[in-house]
């Protein structure tokens, strides 16, 4: 019997599969399609202090084995999320959810995290210091170890629940940023957010997305994400969530061998609405094929060997 359970910052997950923030809304579009309680958990749409429309459209561009998005953190704001989205979610999802939070100042992060930390449904806070689509916010905190540590420290001071910092790959040395977050009290690290990218329309000779550049995700970035997970997992002691281009049960296993305790699935949800359910279904057979009886046992298996 394949044992898929993992423990993420002290909370047990039935399996390590987690839909990534921004690809799963607040859950109920998918709950109309399948019982989302099969998931380990999911990370809900990046939430900010104030409501945000996000960037102008078009916000989406096709790429080889992936897409660019420049949504820019569209969300109804933390108050509405707590008053409206979470109660709706409670009807369809009975596990702890991961609250994904973004901000434009340390105060913003603290404000939103403190409120979400008090919600019973929230199991973890995933603090996004890595959104490439908003100017003056998000990623600027994730591109310097000092700023990332400052956000981590401030959020940790007001939260009782595990705080996971989501890192940007658009940096020279991701390991130093991960270490700074750990030093500042982070309970976990998730990586990677999207890679900054762009496409140009040959007919109009203009960038495809109105914001000109956007975040590149999808299977094309899997090797980059895997490499960064491998580097960070070797350096830190806290659990790592592997994110980036994961599309199959085999990818999940590969991420875990690189050192991930749990794995987020992003872009795959957009083209294959049943992707996470299918990956969870396929995991036992993939485990058997590679002679794995318990997923816990393979975490970081490629690091020491």
């Amino acid at each position, binding site marked *: 019997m394949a044992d898929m359970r993992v423990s993420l910052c002290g909370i047990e997950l039935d399996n390590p599969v987690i839909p990534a923030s*921004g*690809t*799963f*809304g607040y859950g109920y*579009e*998918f709950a*109309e*399609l399948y019982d989302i309680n099969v998931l380990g958990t999911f990370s809900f*749409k990046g939430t900010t202090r104030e409501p945000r*429309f*996000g960037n102008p*459209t*078009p*916000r*989406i*561009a*096709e*790429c*080889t*084995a*992936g*897409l660019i*998005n420049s*949504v820019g953190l*569209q969300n109804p704001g933390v108050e509405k999320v707590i008053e409206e989205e979470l109660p709706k979610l409670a009807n369809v999802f009975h596990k702890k959810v991961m609250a994904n939070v973004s901000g434009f100042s340390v105060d913003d992060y603290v404000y939103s995290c403190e409120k979400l930390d008090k919600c019973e449904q929230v199991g973890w806070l995933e603090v996004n210091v890595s959104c490439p689509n908003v100017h003056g916010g998000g990623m600027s905190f994730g591109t310097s170890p000092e700023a990332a540590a400052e956000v981590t420290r401030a959020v940790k001071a007001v939260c009782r629940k595990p705080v996971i910092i989501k890192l940007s790959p658009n940096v020279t040395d991701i390991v130093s940023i991960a270490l700074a977050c750990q030093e500042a009290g982070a309970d976990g690290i998730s990586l990677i957010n999207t890679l900054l990218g762009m496409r140009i329309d040959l007919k109009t000779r203009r960038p*495809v997305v109105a914001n000109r550049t956007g975040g590149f995700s*999808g*299977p094309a970035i899997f090797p980059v994400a895997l490499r960064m997970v491998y580097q960070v997992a070797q350096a830190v002691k806290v659990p790592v969530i592997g994110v980036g281009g994961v599309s199959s049960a085999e990818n999940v296993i590969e991420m875990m061998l690189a050192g991930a305790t749990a794995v987020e699935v992003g*872009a795959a*949800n*957009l*083209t294959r*609405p*049943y992707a996470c359910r299918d990956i969870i279904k396929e995991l036992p057979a993939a485990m058997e094929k590679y002679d794995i009886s318990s997923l816990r046992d393979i975490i970081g298996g490629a690091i020491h060997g």
Partner: protein
Amino acid sequence: MRQGIFQIIENLPLARDIMSLRLGGDTGAIVRPGQFVNIQVEDCFLRRPLSVCDWDGDSLTVVYRIAGRGTELLAKMKNGSLDVLTGLGNGFNTALSGDRPLLIGGGLGFTPLYALAKNLIKEGKKVQVILGFASKEQAVYVDKFKALGCEVTVCTEDGSLGLKGYVTRAMEGLDYSHFYTCGPEAMFKAVSDCSLTSGQFSFEQRMGCGFGACMGCSCETLYGVKRICKEGPVLMKEEIKWRT
């Protein structure tokens, strides 16, 4: 929304760069004209969202323009199967049509209006249709609308068929109870400005998922943010926030 495998029944050119694709499969999720499907094309990452032009119990038709790599690849498929999400979007509200609805299509914007016309005729409405095209060569589906029993006026930009000029020229002096339109956004504002009644506009936007998950296609309306793929693609005239 439903995901299903559809067989290609036919995929034929109607005019230069305009294709008609008929697919066989479970159409049970399609409940209103104006809804769309999202088709996975091999070797493309994102699906291609296309309006349903017509459907019955076990087949559906989409009409599309070869406009980029995805539709180029799709146009080459003559048989085999496709992974399709069906029943996407809100679709048109036929309850608001009144007894003399006007349907206004610009270019390929006629596609969702065809199924709508069929529905309205079935409900006993007197359906007037204005179809605008660049030229006679692009003017497809005119006879099909006529065969349904619609009163059809054609406009072409170059005057090679019907009235010379834009669809708004044909709207002048018409008596109608409600209107439905689909076409380029530049046409929408002009249609809205010269319209005499309430109406419904079917919008288009680049989409990531097509079912409300990614927020890629959102737009601001006078009544809050809406996702074109989920709360749209059809918006009421009274809620549209025109881009200035």
